């Protein structure tokens, strides 16, 4: 007869533990620190990797099964979208500006996250976090690809999508997101987890995906809704990983708290600045709006972030340093940034426009304390100039923040009528910043941030020497088609023409 086999039913947790962390062993032919050389230099102390709690307990067979189900749904929808001229069902071609920014600035970030999580998935000395990071690495390349695939069809009919790969590296506003991800990837594995796993995924992606994707649904863009929500379904796993990772660091050693706090301060603000782009998408670029940037912030920033920082208080963590300033800036940032984008729209691979009266009424309703007082007058002025045949363009050099790479167009906290501008000297050079927080981030790591590639100054140096046309060619920007006002653009004209073809006989 057979040897009796011990086959008590394992719980989900036990089984997962056998199928992941039990795979590793203590090496004896090589030193552990040689297998995982980057695990300690950041100063995070880990005493027991076994204390790691797995966020989601997905084994590979279940992963393949559920992800395949998501993929089948996604591609069925975008195939149908392409076959049925789905692009003509969107509310209005203005909406496409938001998608162009997404493809140029955010999708490359998905790829960077893929690469960064592959590195983290190899560098952590515990199997629990390794496997969780690897799963995120493969998810992130999924997101980059589903986004490119969803927007591929728009590229066939509209301007501004065609050179996203070149513009990722060359055009000025994409370097806001690029520098964010480069900053995270050039950090060690623990800081990377705070940057992407925690700040970006847990605190900020809700703001990027959830209200914006609801907006896409509202504007008839089923292709974007599908990639957005499909990506978010992975994001729920990623958020859980981010939160687990931060708890793990805080519980492992009290000395970790100070380091983690510094990273939270830094990455909250870095992320908040990247969301500047998203705020304009929400408030200005959706022809039909779901909620304002302020309303989204209240739910997903203030309330959700607040709950989280309340919870982390037991470890001695306080809300990020920029938290209060961020809450105040939310009433201004989309307006200030959209005004900037409009006046530099000769240099953007998407269109912007002067908000209609109806748009402005919506904005004053959503921003009762700020829009009419500070921003409506500026838009009215720009509108007058436009009507007089002298459209407002600013060909001057914008000062870019050395840290976040946004133009320094934001106001002083507490004084919306003045421009906030900081500078500091390091090794005889002067560096410019948009805010105290960005300046502080620089001062913590000056050797890193002096390396930043600043796209605007590059325009004025050799070989371009301020030649705008040469710059456009280098940035793969088709002048007169990709850029400028929406009014009279190829996108506007074609969309109208095609829509008429399909709705009339």
């Amino acid at each position, binding site marked *: 007869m057979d040897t009796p086999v011990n086959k008590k039913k394992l719980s*989900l947790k036990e089984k997962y533990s056998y199928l992941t962390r039990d795979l590793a062993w203590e090496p004896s032919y090589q030193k552990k620190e040689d297998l995982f050389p980057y695990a300690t230099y950041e100063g995070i102390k880990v005493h027991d990797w076994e204390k790691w709690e797995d966020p*989601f307990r997905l084994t590979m067979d279940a992963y393949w099964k559920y992800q395949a*189900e998501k993929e089948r749904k996604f591609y069925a929808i975008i195939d149908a979208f392409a076959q049925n001229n789905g692009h003509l069902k969107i509310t209005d071609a203005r909406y496409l500006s938001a998608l162009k920014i997404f493809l140029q600035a955010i999708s490359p970030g998905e790829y960077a996250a893929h690469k960064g999580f592959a590195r983290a998935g190899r560098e952590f000395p515990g199997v629990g976090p390794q496997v969780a990071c690897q799963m995120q690495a493969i998810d992130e390349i999924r997101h980059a690809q589903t986004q490119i695939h969803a927007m591929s069809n728009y590229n066939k009919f509209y301007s501004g999508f065609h050179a996203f790969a070149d513009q990722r590296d060359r055009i000025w506003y994409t370097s806001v997101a690029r520098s964010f991800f480069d900053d995270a990837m050039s950090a060690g594995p623990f800081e990377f987890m705070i940057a992407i796993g925690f700040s970006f995924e847990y605190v900020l992606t809700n703001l990027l995906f959830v209200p914006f*994707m*609801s907006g896409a649904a509202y504007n008839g863009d089923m292709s974007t809704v599908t990639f957005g929500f499909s990506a*978010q*379904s992975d994001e729920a796993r990623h958020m859980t990983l981010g*939160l687990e990772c931060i708890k793990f660091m805080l519980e492992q050693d009290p000395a970790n708290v100070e380091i983690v706090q510094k990273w939270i301060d830094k990455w909250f603000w870095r992320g908040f600045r990247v969301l500047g782009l998203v705020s304009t998408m929400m408030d200005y670029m959706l022809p039909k709006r779901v909620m304002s940037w302020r309303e989204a912030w209240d739910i997903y920033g203030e309330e959700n972030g607040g*709950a989280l920082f309340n919870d982390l208080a037991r470890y001695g963590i306080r809300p990020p340093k920029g938290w209060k300033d961020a809450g105040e800036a939310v009433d201004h940032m989309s307006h200030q940034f959209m005004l900037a984008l409009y006046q530099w729209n000769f240099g953007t691979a998407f269109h912007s426009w002067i908000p209609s009266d109806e748009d402005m009424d919506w904005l004053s309703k959503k921003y009762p304390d700020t829009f009419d007082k500070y921003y409506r007058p500026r838009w009215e002025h720009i509108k007058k100039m436009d009507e007089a045949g002298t459209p407002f363009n600013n060909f001057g050099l914008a000062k870019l923040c050395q840290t976040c790479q946004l133009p320094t167009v934001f106001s002083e906290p507490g004084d919306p009528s003045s421009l906030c501008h900081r500078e500091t000297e390091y090794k005889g050079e002067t560096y410019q910043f948009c805010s105290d927080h960005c300046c502080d981030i620089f001062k913590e790591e000056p050797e890193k941030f002096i390396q930043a590639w600043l796209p605007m100054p590059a325009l004025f140096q050799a070989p371009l020497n301020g030649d705008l046309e040469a710059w456009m060619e280098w940035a793969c920007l088709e002048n007169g088609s990709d850029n400028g006002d929406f009014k009279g653009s190829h996108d506007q004209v074609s969309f109208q023409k095609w829509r008429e073809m399909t709705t009339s006989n």
Partner: protein
Amino acid sequence: MSTVFIAFQTNEETRPVIEAIELDNPSATVHQEPAMVKIDAPDELVIRRETIEDQIGREYDLQELQVNLITMSGHLTEDEDTFTLSWK
């Protein structure tokens, strides 16, 4: 008190899940938004496998939730029978 939440895509697969959540969490509030359903609850929200199975009349694996999940907030604890979000 802090709010936990979970959001799903609006479709036929999530309808019984949301009904089950409402049954198990009387203090939860359900918000219908474009293409998505978001459920808020004070401090804790529990999803029970059994209640979902009662709704759909077949066996259900809680990991199936992930196919239509959009977002969530709170600490997650997960076993064969329950999927719990909480702030505590």
